[in-house]
């Protein structure tokens, strides 16, 4: 089973307002976020500031506060908010039949 989308698991496995990680062999870890209104976003698990693991931050609205120095990153765009500048690559994600799918090509690209 390959196709365009990688099946990661059930939506329920990601805590609401929380995150889970997916390591990529030979590449960068992906973080999957689930927000309070049950939307899912996928980003490379690396803060544009100094590489903090965004998956460990506090999720609020559609943003995450980086656990290291509290930059706020928009989940939809990966962009740092407020006065901070920088961007984390995002990965297209979709939910189908309760399963979380991420875009294979983008995951590979992020890995490269």
């Amino acid at each position, binding site marked *: 089973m390959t196709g365009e989308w990688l099946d990661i698991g059930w939506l329920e496995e990601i805590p609401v307002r929380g995150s889970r990680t997916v390591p990529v062999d030979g590449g960068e870890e992906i973080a999957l976020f689930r927000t309070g209104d049950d939307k899912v976003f996928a980003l490379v698990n690396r803060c544009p500031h100094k590489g903090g693991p965004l998956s460990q931050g506090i999720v609020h*609205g*559609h943003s995450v506060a980086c656990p290291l120095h509290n930059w706020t990153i*928009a989940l939809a765009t990966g962009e740092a908010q407020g006065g901070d500048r920088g961007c984390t690559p995002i990965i297209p994600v979709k939910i189908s039949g309760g399963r979380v799918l991420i875009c294979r090509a983008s*995951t590979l690209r992020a890995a490269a």
Partner: protein
Amino acid sequence: MIDHVERLHLVVIGNGMAGCRAVEELLARDARRYRVTIFGAERHVNYNRIMLSPVLAGEKSFDDIVINDADWYRANDIALIAGDPVTAIDRASRTVMSRGGRVVHYDKLLIATGSDPFIIPVPGAALPGVVGFRDMSDVDAMLAAAERGGDAVVIGGGLLGLEAAHGLSLRGMKVTVLHLMPTLMERQLDEAAGWLLKSALEARGQTILTGADTAEIIGADAVEGVRLKDGRVIPAQLVVMAAGIRPNTALAREAGLAVDRGIKVDDHLVTSDPDVLAVGECVEHDGQVYGLVAPLWEMCRALADGLVGQPSGYRGSVTSTKLKVSGIDVFSAGDFAGGDGAEDIVLRDASRGVYKRVVVRDDRLVGAVLYGDTADGAWYFDLLRKQEDIAGLRDVLIFGQAFAQGGGQADPRAAVAALPDDTEICGCNGVSKGQVIACIGNGAASLDAVRAGCKASASCGSCTTLVGQLLDLTLGEAVEAGPKTMCKCTSFGHDDVRREIVAQEMRSIPEVMHKLHWSTPDGCSSCRPALNYYLLCALPGDYRDDQQSRFVNERMHANIQKDGTYSVVPRMWGGITTPGELRAIADVVEKYNAPMVKVTGGQRLDIFGIRKEDLPAVWADLNAAGMVSGHAYGKALRTVKTCVGAEWCRFGTQDSTGLGVKLERGFWGSWMPHKFKMAVSGCPRNCAEATIKDFGVICVDSGYELHVGGNGGIHIRATDLLVKVATETEAIHYAAAFVQLYREEARYLERTAPWIERVGLAHVKDRIVEDAAGRDALAARFWHAQTFSQDDPWAERAVGKAREQHAHMAAFNPIRVEEIA
């Protein structure tokens, strides 16, 4: 007479909402082109399925909800074959077969088979007494059960489940709703609205269990109850499965049509076979499957256009939802995912029970959630569907259509200026505009001064914006900024929020956010941890800690490092260790390849560089040697530093080590506004540096000097002497009272040093030294809270709790996936 032979034969499978509407649309365009036969599995004429809820609730009868009666079929020369479902489609011969043995030829076939309730696959799901909620026979079964009375369980807290629960409870059954997710209707509502809905349903006598995972339906010959995965058993003679629907695609799949989640159709509702069309809930268009009627209407129009040779094309639908429970108004529309540059506008009015949230992106409305006042639902939905530019309405959008379009008052200040003097500004305290202006006239130049002067906006805060505008209008530049608010999500400061949590007996973060009019849907990384702490402190034993509102270190029970690994610090009570503990630590360092182990400034060992996946195993090893979490990561008791004291030191006056151990054993685990450090020195030489600790003890010949409010950190501060006591027992008693006062009064992230500077040592002495009864009460509250907090968080996790915090969800190995391909 119409000539049947000349006309093409259209066969419809499914006499439901979409099937019949498609035929209606077709007849309206060209009544002569097709001869129509409709197969229906149900024994009824076409009725309005969505009105089954009012039928169950006793507000309507079946006759009231019929859409097309027998006369309609007759008048339009439609052959209705009701009660005889189609069992197979043969595309080669263009025929359908029915259970009753009918074989009918078609020129065009329309599949409109709708959906089936999803029956969760648990033991007992097939017992008599388990029903879905989809058609009239389900309603009949529920009504028969309600007749006998007793307990009903509804599995699923979405739209269908809640309407079933409402109907059954009106019919006199005792209803429990089991919902897997933390909030009701989570697909349509955000947490705030879900919480309001839950409170309202509970107030009507229903029991709502969220986070409830069904393990089994129990009963010998019929349903007797439901057992949850956590072991609870809920008695029930009726179980309604409302856990979702599945498109009814079996026929199409067996006929070899392209099917994914639903039957795949193009923009003209044509399947992979040009002679077979499909419409309604059974189809998948552009990756979407719908579960509401509005999209069906749009599909049916495009379908009929295609059938008469004037293709228009269906482009997908935006949907909105309303809950049909009388007296409870809930509306949701569009997508509140926001994303790129999306902005939330939130209005909360706790006194009226209203919550509104609209999501705006690029000057367009993209989503709306309304609770309590849904009057503007249609207006928002219209703006949303038409993608109207709302730039001009932005500031007043949330107040609704009447306000936004009422006489060009798009400038909120102009609108406020135009209000008559007797308009009530603050509903909680009954303060009029005139009174607020008078208060400002008497010298109140800030929000806080107005709150103090006339009480406007001092309670729930929903009128803060209005009061702010009145200040602006009256004083212009001369308005003074108030004291700092907790964060940008609220107009209240920490002290106000804490006071209201206690006064209004609030019990959860969404409740606080609602009652105090938070301007964001779920707060931010500043307010959420603070609220979590305030609730925890106010409701010991009762409040369920919200892990997602904790900073990483407290959620992971370890300290995050700059490279994303963690450090692990086990407790060493009073700084004393044993060969066994040291050996266990050494083993962990080697076993998990920890790059460094270091003696900390707090008299214990810190193991660095542990990966989050390995943490539970590391803790299991440390637990096995008798060690527990040192909370080196927590807003909690850190270390109790000691010196060797009277036992060994030639100057020692008391057993400083022993007292340190007792303090650490008594106080560990308690959550506090910030970290809390203690020390006990055996004499005034003070080798344990007790005078820069939050609570420090200096032993002297005649007893114990208790010092408070020290800090060795960013702003160094030596302690103040609180009091001198004669015994160890008294020293511990005062420590408990002091810690509790700090827990109850300090603001989140305020160490004892800045707290004491702010409130004054005199205040602390008044409460703890002068007031003996008050001291005892504080200490009693502290020890009570401690009975709930001394569970080692590592031990729970070592055996699997919060596994999701540590384990990866999946792993991606590009090469291996390629190989499978």
